[in-house]
Structure formats: C-alpha cells, structure tokens
C-alpha cells in the first residue's frame, strides 16, 4: 500500500471493526464483547506459548496486561481492548507499496529469485541474464488479457487464481508485469517472509502479511476489512480463493467465501460513498505446471488423512532453496512452460462483463448491478444476501477454473496410466492400489498410447465443461506427448512417477501419478469415456 494510504487505512480498518462489533453487541446476548476479547486472548496466548519467548516478549506483555484488565473491565474497557487488539493486528498486516520499488522489484524477479535462492554465488550471478530470459521464455501468459486490461478504466480488479505451489504468487507477480497489468496486492503467508530477500520482494510487490497461525475472529476481521478498504481505494487485489494450495492436485471446486465476500462489501461501500468507479471485476485465472515443486509433499499430505490434511505446511520443498533452484533449472531444460491463463472477467455477482465494464446477463442484456444491492435506490448491506451472492460468484469462478484449466502432457499421461492401473486392478481400493501397485508393475507402451488417444478423443468430443489442452497436445502426436511427460517425470522428483524401459512403461511413484492425473478430475471423464450414460 502506498505510504499516503497506509495510515488512514489502518485507522479506517480499526474504526470499522470497533463500530461493527459495538453495534452487534447491542442486539447480541449479553457478554458479546467480552466473548470476543476472550476469544482473542485465548487463541493468541495459546499461539504465543509455542513462540520464542524472547522474540514475542512485547506481545506476551500486551496480552498479559489485557488479561489483567479483563477481570474488572467495563464496557468502555472492552471497547478499548477491541480497538487496541485490532490496531496491533492491522499494524502487522499492512504491507508496503512503492511504485518505484515495485517496478524495480518486478523486473528483477527472475534475477532476484535466482540470486536469493542460490545464496548469491558470484559465478551464478554471471548467468543471471540468461536465467531471466529463461523464465520469460518458459512462462506463457494467455487468455483474456486485453479484456482484463480494458477494465482498468472502469474499476478495480480482483484476480482469483487456482493455487498449486508457493511459487504461484511470484509467477503471477511476474506474469502480471509481463503483460502490462498493474500490480496486485495480496495476502501472503508469514512463512514466505522468513527469508529477508524474499521478504523484501514480497512486501514491495504489494503483499501484506497473513499469519495463518492466528485463529481468533478479530484477526480474520482485520484481514477482511483490510482487503475491503484496499479495494475501495482502488488497489487491485489477488486472493487465492481455494484458501490453500490444492493438496490433491485437483482444480479447486470448493472455495472459501470469507475473503471473496469482501468484494460485495467493498462494492456497497463504494456505492454508498458515491465513488466515481465503484465497480469491482473478478478475474479467475489458472496456473498449470508441467511439474509442481511441492507435488510429492502435497499429495502425501492429501493421502495421509483425507480431510484432515495440514492447513499450513512449512517444511516442504519451498523451504529448501536448493530444491527450488534445482526445480527451476530442470524445468528450464525442458521444452515446457508454466501456463498462466486469464479467464473472462466477471462482476462480483458472477455475471460476465464486456470491455466497457458493463455486466451482462446470460442473454447478453446489460445489467445494472447496483440494483442487486439497493432498495428503492439506496444501497445497503445485508450479510445473508451478500453471502448468497458470494456463493453464486464462487460457482461462476469454479466454472471458469474448470474451463480454463490447461492440461499438459504430464497430466494427460498420468491420467491415462492411472486408468490402466485401475482397470487392471478392479478389486483394489485406491489406497491399496497406491501402496501395492496391483498385479503388474508395467504396461506395454502401446496400451498407454491407446489409452491416451481414447482420453484425448473423449476430451475433444466432450460437450459442455472441458479443460483446455496445451498447444503441444493439440498436434495429437501421442508418442511425443508420452515421451515429453516421461522425460519430465524423470527429471525432478525424488522418484519418477513413471519410467520407460524397452517397450514397457513402469508405474513408479503412484502417489505422484494420482497427483498429476487429478488435474483432469471434475469433468466426469470416467463416465464419458465409458460411453456417456450408464
């Protein structure tokens, strides 16, 4: 955030939160504010118990003092505590933004990234230019870029990408810069700020800090209100609506509504304040990687206990600089690209918008969206109504994700090979199949080619929802696709997902096969391949 906006935003965030809770306390059962403060105290003290006491001394002192005050707190004291706690949170969250630093930092991403990941070895520094070109050559940005750009004259953007890797925000930052879109502000996990150099880039790329260890309501309110205020001030935002990296490798189909919902609140505030450009435009965006840096950790976490996976992973591949470097240089050696696809922009109600920023209904008629949130011409907030609008928006985003998800050779080959495995072992449940590999350790290359042809044929002839195929797959040379994927599998992961020996293909790391194949889930492909109706 620009320095001139920072202070007033902090004041605004705190004042809105205090006002909201004081108002709620009026109608809520007695003890509402007390519960709110206690919730913060409880969660924060619990969190601090696990922190380094010396580094957290100031915070511990604050919460100890707050606890003492709670024993004889008046309503006024409680209100003050809510204010002080919110103030502490917002101070921590608010990021830095400097236009000049941004320009410098973005243009330096490839260089900077390499440098810091490689601990600035002088010899490596010499080849930085090559690296930078390398990333530009390996990054394909496509989709509705011009359309998105045309909306800048009409309102504020909210970019909502799929999320696979911690590299996503860096890749997106660079993609945004490459296609000439303005900087995006986004919440980044504290773990991304641990390295001082990354931290420098993150902060100056518009990132604000999100500490996912903070579980209390008040902290989440601060985050949401900060996003709301920044949107109202015209800062283009980026949220990962899935909330966290996809563990299974699937495209997100269930989105978190919290942050997404702030766009409706910001829109109503804009209308109430009669801002000249009140509109917000939601831009779904997909990222596709031939190989995913953290693939092994993520799928293992997914399988360990489905539904109970860790929300925060701090000890994965991303935390090991050498591995990140290794990953990138391997990726560069392939003909592969990281594909960023911008989908058609939506309004915050899930309608499509034209290049003039006007919302369109499904018959192409222009819609006056202000009417969705007004009564007799006056805009008003209604939490239940807005939650429903957000739910509808999330459905529209998921639809865009599924349509603009780009399938690369690794996904297609993993999917085909996994199909063969399943068919060969119909009696095994998924977990047993993953563990044992079933009755055969390999399949003839010919079978894989045939299966892949079948998958491709189904994909191409599917009516309705289907993913995009990468340009390399459009040509239709099955053998080349398989070769491409197997080469990629063999390059980076600890164990390749699959390898070729002679005229047979061996399934090696079935978890990874599942992970990459999952990118094709959500399209009802299994049923479609069996001839539609069953």
């Amino acid at each position, binding site marked *: 955030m620009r320095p001139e906006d920072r202070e007033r935003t902090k004041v605004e965030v705190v004042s809105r939160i205090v006002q909201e809770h004081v108002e709620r306390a009026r109608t809520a059962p007695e003890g509402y504010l007390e519960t709110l403060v206690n919730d913060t105290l409880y969660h924060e003290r619990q969190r601090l118990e696990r922190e380094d006491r010396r580094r957290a001394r100031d915070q511990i002192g604050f919460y100890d003092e707050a606890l003492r005050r709670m024993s004889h707190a008046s309503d006024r004291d409680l209100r003050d505590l809510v204010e002080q706690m919110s103030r502490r949170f917002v101070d921590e969250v608010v990021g830095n933004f400097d236009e000049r630093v941004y320009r410098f930092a973005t243009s330096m991403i490839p260089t900077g990234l390499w440098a810091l990941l490689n601990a600035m070895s002088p010899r490596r520094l010499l080849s930085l230019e090559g690296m930078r070109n390398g990333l530009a050559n390996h990054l394909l940005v496509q989709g509705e870029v011009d359309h998105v750009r045309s909306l800048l004259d009409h309102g504020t953007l909210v970019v909502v990408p799929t999320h696979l890797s911690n590299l996503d925000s860096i890749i997106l930052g660079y993609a945004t810069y490459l296609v000439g879109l303005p900087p995006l502000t986004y919440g980044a996990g504290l773990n991304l700020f641990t390295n001082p150099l990354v931290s420098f880039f993150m902060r100056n790329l518009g990132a604000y800090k999100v500490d996912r260890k903070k579980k209390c309501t008040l902290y989440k309110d601060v985050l949401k209100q900060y996003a709301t205020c920044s949107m109202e001030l015209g800062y283009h935002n980026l949220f990962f609506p899935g909330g966290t990296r996809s563990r299974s490798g699937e495209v997100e189909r269930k989105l978190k509504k919290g942050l997404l919902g702030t766009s409706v609140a910001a829109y109503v505030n804009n209308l109430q304040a009669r801002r000249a450009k009140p509109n917000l435009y939601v831009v779904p965006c997909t990222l596709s990687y031939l190989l995913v840096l953290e693939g092994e950790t993520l799928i293992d976490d997914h399988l360990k206990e489905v539904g109970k996976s860790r929300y925060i992973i701090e000890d994965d591949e991303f935390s090991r600089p050498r591995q990140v470097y290794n990953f990138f240089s391997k990726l560069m050696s392939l003909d592969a690209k990281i594909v960023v696809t911008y989908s058609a922009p939506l309004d915050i109600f899930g309608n499509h918008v034209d290049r003039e920023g006007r919302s369109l209904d*499904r018959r192409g008629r222009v819609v006056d969206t202000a009417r969705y949130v007004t009564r007799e011409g006056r805009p008003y907030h209604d939490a239940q109504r807005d939650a429903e609008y957000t739910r509808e928006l999330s459905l529209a985003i998921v639809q865009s994700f599924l349509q603009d998800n780009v399938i690369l050779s690794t996904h297609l080959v993993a999917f085909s090979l996994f199909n063969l495995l399943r068919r060969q072992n119909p009696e095994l449940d998924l977990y047993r199949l993953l563990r044992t590999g079933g009755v055969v350790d390999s399949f003839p290359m010919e079978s894989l080619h045939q299966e892949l042809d079948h998958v491709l044929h189904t994909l191409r002839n599917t009516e309705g929802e289907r993913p995009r195929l990468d340009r390399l797959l459009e040509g239709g040379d099955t053998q080349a696709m398989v070769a491409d994927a197997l080469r990629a599998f063999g390059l980076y992961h600890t164990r390749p997902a699959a390898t070729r020996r002679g005229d047979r293909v061996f399934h090696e790391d079935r978890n990874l096969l599942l992970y990459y194949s999952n990118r094709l889930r959500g399209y009802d492909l299994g049923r479609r391949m069996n001839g539609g109706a069953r």
Partner: protein
Amino acid sequence: MSKDSVGVVGAGSWGTTLARILGDNGHQTLVWAFEQEVCDEINAQHTNSRYVPEMVLPGTVRATGDLQQICERCQFMLMVIPSHVLRRVATQMGDHLDGEHIIVHCTKGIEQETFKRMSEVLREETCVRKIGVLCGPNLARELAARQPAGTLVASKFDEVVRAAQHYLHNSYFRVYGGSDVVGAEVGGAFKNIVAVAAGVVDGLKLGDNTKALLLTRGLSEMARYGASLGADLLTFGGMAGIGDLMATCASPLSRNHQVGERLARGETLQQIQEGMFMVAEGVKTTRSVQAYAIYRGLELPIVHAAHALLYDGTGVQAAIEELMARDVAREFVELRL
C-alpha cells in the same frame, strides 16, 4: 413507473387463486393473463369463469395483458404458468426486469428437454437473482373456498421468503419459509408423477394398503431423485414433500390423479389429453424424470412404471405386476441415511 402493486404472472386456476389471496390481504394486485378475454373479464366483472368459475375476486385485483407493465409496476411477483411456457414468458419479461425484482414461481414441473428446474430457467432468462419457489399441499379449489392450508416458500435469499410471507400469509394460508430451493422444486414436480400412479390405484379400486405402499415408495424415489440434485432430504418430510404428495394423491380434484384414473379405465394418453384443457404437469414430468434417471443411472421404478403406462402402452396390470416382482432391499438403502 412506480411500484404500486404485487404481481401474478398467469391467470389459470392457481394463479387466480393466489391473486385472490393477495387481494384478500389488502394488496393492490396486478395479474397478467395470456388470453385477452380473461383479462377483460377480471377487470370488468372480477371473475375468471374459464378457470375458476365460482370465484369472485376482490376489487384490489386487476388484470393486464402487458408483461412490461407488470414488470414496471410490481417489485414482487408470483410466476404461475405451466413449465413448458415458463421460459418463453421469462425471456420476454427479462427485457423489463432488474436486480431489485423478486420472483417466486409456483410452477410444479421440470423443463422437458433440459431437465432444468424452473428457478434455473428464470436465472438463465432474466437478470433476477432474488428467486424463490412456492410449493405445498395447495389444491386451488380448496383454497378458493378459503379452507385452512399451508405452503412452503423456499429461497436462498431470506429477503424473498420474508416478502412472500408478508404478502401471502393470512388467517387461512400459512406460509412456511425454507432455503432448499432444489428440494421444494423437486418435491413439487415429482409428486405429480406419483399422483398419476395414485390415480391408477384409485381407478382400479385398490385399497389403502396399496395406496400407502405407493406413496411411501414414491416419497423414497422423490428423495433419491432430489438427493442426486443436491436437495436436503428433510425437505421431503415437509410441505413440499410429504405434504404436497398426500394432498395431490388423495384428492380426485387433482388433474394428474384424473389422468391416472382414466388410464386405469383403459384410455390412452392421447384420448385423455384430448378431453383436458388444463395441463396435467405429471404427464410431462414423467418423461423428463425418466430421461434423467436413465442418464444418471438412477433407479426409480415407480417413475419407470408411470412412463410405461403413459408412453409405451403398457397395461396397468402388467405395470403393477412388474413393480411387485422387484427384489426387495433394506428400506432407505438408496438414501444412505
């Protein structure tokens, strides 16, 4: 133009009855009628002799043939038109609607070619989001006589439910609220299929045991079908589920029931339809649900039997024998309760 009235789109027996309830409640009510003579009669004589011969409408109820006018004058509207024309009417209305409008549809059917529910059709053809569905045990003729009754209005928007309750609820009509739009729509549409089958049972003069068996298993199929579309199973235990099913299947007044009775007498669908000027939704719904069940691999034996009776010329005895010969499983096994 100012919004000075509440609207009812459709002046059939149910639409007119609902307009009378709105009028009884003191609301200026504007009814859109497709036929000009119906419009004229309502405005001149406060009657609609074609659809509800006995009813006299209060002076608060007026009629129009102009869809634009009803959209401009009414913020809150009930849509009470047959499923096969709902899309066409909605498309025309779409040019005059905005995001403040509230539409509650009262159509108990599914679009034949697309399997879409009426709220989905409204969503596709208009920019309106505040959509709801009204569904319950509401035989128009009983409500016309102001006999106590209840119904369900379901919408994802609380505002819609509140508005519907505000306008419709009164001393003889209880309006319950809910949020399960899918469940309410499925209940309303599906029960018409069971009603056709119930008509057959009554036409054959089979007893209460048979009827209860049919209704219970019909409800189970309704829930199975609803669950596949994401409905809340509890809805089927309420107004739009068991409530509507009981009223429709018990009453010889229901058009769907009449279709069943005449099938039992050996008439063909064509013969039956020639003699009816109002729509029996169950006839079309049977075809839609049957097609959907095949597409999704759902097992819905009563639907299948109704389809065979209506469209394949299967005899009633053969259909019953086939149903009774099916394997029995544990109750609710398909619902995984």
